[in-house]
């Protein structure tokens, strides 16, 4: 039974309620004035307490989307931490669509579970685009695809990530337009689904497009960790998984080959929250040609290593430094990228680190800040930072141009701040 499935949550809730009921019913059994009975009282209360706590944790996990499955929580036992495919043949598909449905629209709640997406037939092909619903509906809502991506260079293969195709992608006017791409990365622990359901990135983007504030883009939503439960921090691990290569080379290659998207400079941006924010900024600095734009919501700017990451840097302080945006700005030429860093003055421990990072930025790198007066490290705060971040990105990304016209919505009213 899935860790985040509704039935598992329901089962845990029933067990917790049953625990309380049993204690109430069997209460008199422990009513005698003996030491053993005293112990039994504490034991009974404790056991029912445990059941309730477990149900609560299961609920919190599915609410915040920390761990999407048992294997993400516990690791997958026999299989290696990251599946590195040996000798990927050229016939092997870089991207496989495993599910498709109408994309979330503004104002309509997104279902909370991850299991509602129907697994489409014909795994391994990309011609399932548009299968999730009717053409007329697609032109209104766009489509959300669940995908597997096989990294050709890194050999890293991931499952259960999401690609959002905006309504315009299906409209005749845009039939030959190429769209800019936003790569969105979750925090750790986290899941790609929480970008859809909790951050509500596709719905927010669509709301802004409808309001004429941003122009349509394809959004690729991925878990920043490619080896849950390990925190991989978008790092090329010496002698191990090349996670940075996966995100900066393999993912763009797979997306560019599967969808009508741009590949040139100005066509790609990275966005993330928490660990995903660190990833977005680090990858932009390492690969300015691929990600000249990055948005970091409550990210940090130093390469961390703890019990969730394991040894990411070959036990080498110098290599760890090379993965730190702060260190790079102090010791290497600044790269030609623009980054937007968001944090909040009250309630965010990333605020101090963000201020420090901003002081280190030198031309040609450009940094923009968005500081909320207040807000914690949660989706509510990031959701409030999202509209301005998307507008900032839209002003800088190369728009998809519809046939016979200028890029419609978006740019005009948007003035640079």
């Amino acid at each position, binding site marked *: 039974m899935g860790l985040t499935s509704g039935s598992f949550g329901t089962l845990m809730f029933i067990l917790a309620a049953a625990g309380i009921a049993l*204690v*109430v019913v069997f*209460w008199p059994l422990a*009513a*005698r004035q003996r030491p053993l*009975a*005293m112990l039994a*009282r*504490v034991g009974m*209360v404790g056991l*029912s307490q445990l059941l*309730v706590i477990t149900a609560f944790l299961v609920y*919190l996990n599915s609410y915040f989307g920390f761990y999407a499955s048992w294997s993400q929580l516990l690791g997958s036992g026999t299989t290696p931490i990251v599946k590195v495919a040996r*000798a*990927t*043949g*050229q016939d092997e598909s870089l991207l496989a669509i495993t599910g498709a449905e109408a994309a979330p629209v503004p104002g309509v709640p997104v279902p909370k579970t991850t299991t509602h997406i129907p697994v489409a037939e014909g795994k391994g092909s990309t011609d399932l685009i548009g299968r999730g619903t009717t053409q007329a509906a697609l032109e209104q809502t766009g489509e959300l695809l669940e995908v597997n991506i096989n*990294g*050709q*260079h*890194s050999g890293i293969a991931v499952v259960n990530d999401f690609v959002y195709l905006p309504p315009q992608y299906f409209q005749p006017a845009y039939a030959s337009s190429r769209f800019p791409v936003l790569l969105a990365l979750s925090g750790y622990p986290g899941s790609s689904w929480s970008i859809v359901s909790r951050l509500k990135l596709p719905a927010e983007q669509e709301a802004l497009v409808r309001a004429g504030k941003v122009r349509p883009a394809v959004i690729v939503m991925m878990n920043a960790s490619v080896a849950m439960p390990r925190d991989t921090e978008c790092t090329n*691990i*010496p*002698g*191990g998984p090349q996670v940075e290569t996966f995100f900066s080379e393999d993912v763009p290659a797979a997306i560019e080959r599967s969808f009508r998207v741009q590949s040139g400079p100005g066509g790609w941006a990275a966005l993330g929250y928490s660990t995903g924010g660190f990833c977005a900024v680090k990858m932009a600095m390492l*690969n300015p040609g691929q990600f000249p734009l990055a948005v970091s919501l409550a990210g940090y700017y130093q390469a961390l290593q703890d019990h969730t990451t394991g040894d990411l840097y*070959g036990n*080498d*302080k*110098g290599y760890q*430094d*090379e993965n730190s945006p702060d260190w790079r700005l102090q*010791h*290497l*030429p600044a790269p030609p990228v623009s980054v937007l860093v968001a944090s909040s003055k*009250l*309630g*965010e*421990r990333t605020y101090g680190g963000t201020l420090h990072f901003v002081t280190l*930025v030198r*031309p*040609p*790198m*450009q*940094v*923009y*800040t*968005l500081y909320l*007066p*207040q*807000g*914690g*490290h*949660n989706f*509510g*705060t990031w959701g*409030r930072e999202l509209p*301005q971040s998307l507008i*900032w990105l839209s002003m800088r990304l190369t728009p998809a141009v519809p046939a016979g016209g200028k890029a419609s919505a978006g740019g005009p009213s948007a003035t640079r*701040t």
Partner: protein
Amino acid sequence: MGLTSPGLPYLLALLAFVVLLVIVLCWPWLARLAPLQVGLRIVSLCVLQALILGLIFVVVNRSGEFYSSWSDLLGTDDGGHASVVAASHLPEATRHQLTVTGSATVRLPFGHQGGVLEGIRISGQLSGIVATGHVYLPAAYLARGPHKDYPVLTVISDAAAGGGSPYSADRVAQTAATEIAANRMGPLIIVMLPATVNRVDQACLNLPPTLPAHQVGSPSVQAETFFAQDLPGAVEAAFRAASQASHWGLLGDQTGGYCALQLAMDNSGVFSAAVAPRGAYTRPPGLAASRIKGPFALQDDLIWQLTNLPLQPVSVLFAGPGSATGAGLAEPFIQLAQRPMRVSTAQLAAGSWPLARVLDWLAIALGSPPASGHGQGTR
């Protein structure tokens, strides 16, 4: 009391303990079978549950700083208004990453157009590495007519100009000019750079800055960044150069040979062909070999890469040193390389232009075959 105030967990813990104590002590009274007592059992248990769940939540929230206040938690806080502010200085005028320092015509017999050999200085935007070298522009590049983008070959060698090595800039340019004039290869831009950058022979690798080599002088930590990112950027900005990996190749001798293979395998999105002398390539040459330890050493062992990482879509040619034939030391490499990687071997030509056939092969591999049909491959 604030959601994140330090007193809150203690308060909740104290309350929970008191409620637990009350429950345990009043147990016999609550055990009576009356509606009031049964109701109180449920209420007391639920209160205790709520207190303990609250305690867990508050402690976890404090450690992760998820919610900063009650209003943040309840979603009634709009966070106040804020807007995006530019926090950096205006960009300085773009500096040229590639400057031409000199130019000489490549002379061919019978007045054929040989193109030019220019001295260049590349200032790596990302690596900060500054290197001087040469670029050969074929006659077709300089001729009038429809402009097109040319494939680029990068030769990495420490051979000094005029030193007689076939890998020196003047001899490579002369060989290419001759081959192009004889229509055995199509026109290519050829960039020639030393393997030793910033006075450190580090096999074109990004060496971690903690390695002792970097304690002297300016740290040259990012040689791979220089060759794989700065170089294409600078060359594409300065010349009419193709940008796709299928039009970029590498050629090197000694350290440069390791550079060529390593750069192509690690950056198959930038380079699609590499030529190197037959060698074992289990460890980087020069200074890097003695400094690199542990997992870094594994990663820089090309045989380990072939065994453990996905094979890359690059074409490799082993040629030289001298007139060697067969696989030689490159045997393990050739055995391991399978599709999408392609490997071949060739013998360096005898006579004064050993690299002639290698250049012919590279021109075909990089999409610039000779105009008519009679150019020949090396095999």
